[in-house]
């Protein structure tokens, strides 16, 4: 993973019948090129994934090659939230607050099994995937992922940034799920869907 060359998607996709011209797409390309190669990460490291993240940032794997040498420990100056490690419920509002404090444009990488799905911690204290709190752009699997894995995820995010169009306003919209929407899944159904998965301990949750 990450060792083989990946196909390049370094063009801005646009619909031919749209009114966007050559100048707009070239401008998009320039802006995206600048953004993709100067992503400042906000490290949100809570567990062992943070150790791998530090290894990625250090000299051997050298995150600075991708323009990320500047760790932004303030969310106000960050572009990418890299959530590395498990997030307990007590930390859930903190993580959401940090995400809300980051200015647009912003992206999020969920690093490792715990951040992506709760991992082995299917218990009372741990959030089952940070995508239940904030939107996630790239999931990096692994427990913890090797630095190559994180670099692969970062390259994927860069490709995603490169294919964005400034005319598309939708990608910058921040929305809370609307209960009246067709896409909204009520919490009870989410629980029902999620119940067969998780740990192997067969247990019933007493009501209330």
């Amino acid at each position, binding site marked *: 993973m990450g060792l083989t060359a990946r196909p390049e998607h370094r063009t801005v996709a646009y619909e031919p019948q749209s009114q966007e011209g050559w100048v707009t797409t070239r401008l998009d390309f320039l802006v995206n090129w600048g953004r993709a190669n100067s992503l400042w990460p906000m490290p949100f490291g809570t567990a062992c994934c943070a150790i791998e993240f530090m290894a990625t940032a250090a000299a051997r794997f050298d995150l600075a090659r991708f323009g990320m040498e500047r760790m932004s420990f303030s969310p106000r100056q960050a572009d990418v939230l890299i959530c590395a490690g498990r997030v307990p419920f*007590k930390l859930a*509002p903190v993580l959401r607050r940090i995400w809300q404090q980051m200015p647009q444009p912003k992206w999020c990488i969920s690093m490792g099994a715990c951040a992506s799905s709760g991992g082995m911690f299917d218990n*009372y204290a741990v959030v089952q995937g940070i995508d239940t709190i904030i939107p996630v752009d790239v999931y990096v699997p692994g427990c913890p992922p090797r630095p190559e894995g994180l670099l692969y995820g970062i390259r994927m995010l860069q490709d995603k940034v490169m294919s964005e169009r400034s005319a598309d306003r939708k990608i910058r919209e921040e929305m809370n799920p609307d209960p009246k929407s067709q896409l909204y899944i009520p919490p009870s159904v989410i629980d029902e869907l999620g119940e067969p998965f998780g740990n192997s301990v067969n247990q019933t949750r007493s009501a209330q």
Partner: protein
Amino acid sequence: MTEKFNTVQTGGALKEVSAPATPRSVAHRGGDANPSVAALEIQFPGSVLRSQVVWGETTVYITPSSVPDVMRWLHDDPDQRYDYLSDLTAVEYRDYEEPLEVVWHLRSLPFRRFLRVKAAIPRGAPLAIPSVWGIWKAADWMERECYDMFGIVFEGHPDLRRILMWEQYREGFPLRKDFPLRGRFSRAEQLRQALAQNIESRYSMEELTIADAFEDLPPDMRKRLSTGERTGE
């Protein structure tokens, strides 16, 4: 920090001073008991229930009501001087007949002794036991954690509230045997309650670091704290 800080020489109260060595070929059961147990049985005849030595470590079982006297004596007596409370926790056994036990790990630095004290709270009785906060200040957070996880009320603790879970946590006490591993509420409800908590409410004047930085706090928070609002509840 007005009190004079007295340094303690480790093993300084021993008669013959020898370098501490790692014990070898320790028996599982039996062996030399900690001499404090014999002294305890003389000093508190009715309070010491039994004692046992496992892997060279002595455990003494006492009655819950005698906890303050026994602990105070173990701390103050010049022949015991248990000046270090290294751990405080509780045990609940799988059998419902077994009582819930509170465990103190005491260490005497001058005598190089280790003593494990246990007190069983009988089934059916309210989960309460005297606090040892007045003897060892280290008991503060440990008793809070024990209360958070087991629901044991430490009587006499100055600020007994949750420490690991947030204060509005309603699902119960997670380390109890009747607590399901995934919690009592559904995942969605857990997340909803967790996200509904106010992060700023974690601040309270009880936190010393906040009290020191009172003048630097934002005006609205200063106003809230100065009205005596006990935040976080």
